[in-house]
């Protein structure tokens, strides 16, 4: 029997079985290896929303299948294929690393399956590369998105000469690049750029090379790096203020930090210390259920689930097909835990960016003094293009080690 005929008959049989009242979601996150905990946080965020809705999105019964992508692109591809072709999910959600996002996006194009990027931040996925991926939509952020406003904030708050110390990989380049562009456009100067390899924990070689006449040091630290850098700066007796990219002080690493990070400023589309009733409820519920304060990894996936639900509400629980789903999602205007969110025409969120400062205090009725990222300023309606306008922004190259160039680096 011809394979095509066989599958056609099977599809016919199944299509009447898979009633429009079932929604299968394939979730990809690293469950083993170095990012295992982040993957767990991602899954927990999504699952918590699902549990609140009792597994039912506007009449559609949700089947939530979680696969381990191990933080490795080939594994991401295989698991995505498995979810799409064996489990017949209607959409893929997740992907942590940029490389995973880039690995799964073509699969979504090839298999015409929706892929909701709930974390992977690589700028170009919703910029210069978007046309190759008609079935993706991003619900989290682009790497440079929060750092444009942070660059402006730094310049407006008196910082004139900044040294950047960023993890040497694409994400680090894009975060630092976004900061530098906005900072220098406002009149600031980046006088030195240092790129320690991703995973560096001993900053001994780098700290003594930091120029002493800097007003501030802008860091892009991820995971264990984030824990070490502020400590080692303090130990070296350097009092220069530290400003961080979103991952330098986010709630994934904050609980393990100490007093050395008090007063440090960073920017992201979420802070667990966001003092709104919605966030208070979210933080309290999450902490009670999973034993830790939620990080943006959890919030992003929780909100993603919420967005999917909102679209399903519009279609009364019927799966509208990939094109209509994406169109509907990108038309959403939502009050999420992180604040108001809507989408630009490149399928990336437009949202508040919060400038936050680490403080030790009590929040949300908890008894102990703990470290929280207090929001000190909000930039509303921030898109991935900041104030540059989409066309102008896309004309310039993607942020990299060498772009923007270090004009003041002598």
């Amino acid at each position, binding site marked *: 029997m011809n*394979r095509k005929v*066989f599958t056609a008959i099977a599809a016919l049989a199944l299509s009447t079985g898979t009633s429009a009242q079932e929604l299968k979601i394939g979730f990809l996150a690293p*469950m*083993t290896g170095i990012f295992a905990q982040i993957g767990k946080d991602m899954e927990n965020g999504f699952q918590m929303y699902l549990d609140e809705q009792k597994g039912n999105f506007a009449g559609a019964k949700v089947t939530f299948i979680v*696969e*381990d992508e191990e*933080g*490795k*692109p*080939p*594994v991401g*591809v*295989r*698991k995505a*294929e*498995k979810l799409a*072709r*064996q489990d017949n999910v209607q959409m893929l959600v997740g992907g942590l*690393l*940029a*490389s995973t996002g*880039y*690995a799964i996006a*073509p*699969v979504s194009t*090839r298999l015409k399956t929706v892929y909701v990027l709930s974390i992977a931040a*690589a700028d170009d996925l919703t910029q210069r590369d978007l046309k190759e991926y008609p079935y993706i939509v991003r619900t989290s952020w682009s790497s440079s998105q929060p750092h444009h406003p942070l660059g402006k904030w730094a310049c407006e708050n008196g910082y004139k000469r900044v040294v950047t110390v960023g993890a*040497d*990989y*694409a994400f680090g380049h894009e975060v630092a690049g976004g900061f530098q562009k906005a900072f220098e456009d406002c009149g600031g100067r980046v006088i030195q750029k240092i790129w320690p390899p*991703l995973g560096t924990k001993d900053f001994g070689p780098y700290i003594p090379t930091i120029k002493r006449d800097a007003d501030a040091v802008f860091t892009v630290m991820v995971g264990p790096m984030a824990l070490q850098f502020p400590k080692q700066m303090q130990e070296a007796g350097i009092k220069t203020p530290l400003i961080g990219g979103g991952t330098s002080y986010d709630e994934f690493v904050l609980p393990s930090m100490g007093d050395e990070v008090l007063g440090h400023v960073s920017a992201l589309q979420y802070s667990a210390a966001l003092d709104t009733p919605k966030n208070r409820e979210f933080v309290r519920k999450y902490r009670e259920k999973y034993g830790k304060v939620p990080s943006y990894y959890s919030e992003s996936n929780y909100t993603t689930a919420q967005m999917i639900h909102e679209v399903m509400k519009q279609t009364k629980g019927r799966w509208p097909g990939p094109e209509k789903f994406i169109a509907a999602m990108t038309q959403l205007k939502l009050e999420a835990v992180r604040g108001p969110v809507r989408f630009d025409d490149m399928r990336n969120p437009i949202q508040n960016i919060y400038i936050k400062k680490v403080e030790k205090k009590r929040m949300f009725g908890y008894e102990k003094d703990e470290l929280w990222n207090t929001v000190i300023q909000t930039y509303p309606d921030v898109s991935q293009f900041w104030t540059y306008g989409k066309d102008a922004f896309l004309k310039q190259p993607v942020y*990299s*080690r060498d772009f923007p160039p270090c004009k003041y680096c002598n």
Partner: protein
Amino acid sequence: MNRIAILLGVLGIVALLAPFAGPFVILLLAHILVLGIVAMSVDLLLGYTGLPSLGQAAYLGVGAYLTAILATKFGVGLGWDFWLVIALGMAAGAATAAFFGLFAIRASGVYFLMITLALGMCVWGLAYRWNSLTGGDNGINMRGRPSFAGMRLADDLTFFYLVLAFFIASFFALHLLVSSPFGKSLVGIRERELRMRILGYNTWLHKYIAFVIAGAFGGLAGVLWAHLNGIVSPSDVLLPASVDVLLMVVLGGPGTLAGGLIGAGVVVFLRDYLATVVPWWQYVLGTVYVLTILYMPSGIMGLFKGGKA
């Protein structure tokens, strides 16, 4: 000889049943076959020559990156020139091994293990840092598989058959090699290098040639790997990748060539299939390794032979 017949028989059955298997299964099978090629190249070194290499993923990486760069930056390799890329991939793998071998072949045993590890990590460092060429940690996205002679490799089943053909061809090539006098002298070197040298063999040259050949097959697998996954990134050449391949050979049975395929099958099954069913698959993987090493020194193939090659 009848072992080969069994192998071919099994592969033949798989080939016949493939059209009825789900697309995911076909993908897994193709994956097993590509890794099987790498495993066989490692077996050539480990099982036959006695050289435990912890850096073979480097040659896979070289072949894969070459394929990706040619396809995306130069548009080469998407038609009939696919076969050119295959040849180039093998050449690149061989050339890299030829260069590395100059450093590595001087050593043996655990030092060989370490130096190949270090060389593998150097390739990783290059892949990671040379952003403009390799895309850094984002990797390089292939833009679709080649088509020629009316065959569209984008169709997974067609690609699977192609990979199967490559595997069988590689198997035969390597089988001929190890059955030849050259191959026998490799075994001699594994057993008693000193004696071989006394007998007048240039053992360094023999080992070097085996190393280069292994690199060539690694490069071949790399080309297929790039098309299989659609993306090439530095994680493909990380240390755990090389360790995995070594373990596949040990699991399947060193010195049997086909053992590499069996080992690949077990590991891929555990990693990609079992992982989707239970969360504790890594315990199973670790236990399987441990038990095999303790109780099945000749690997799974050893169960069918009851003795060492």
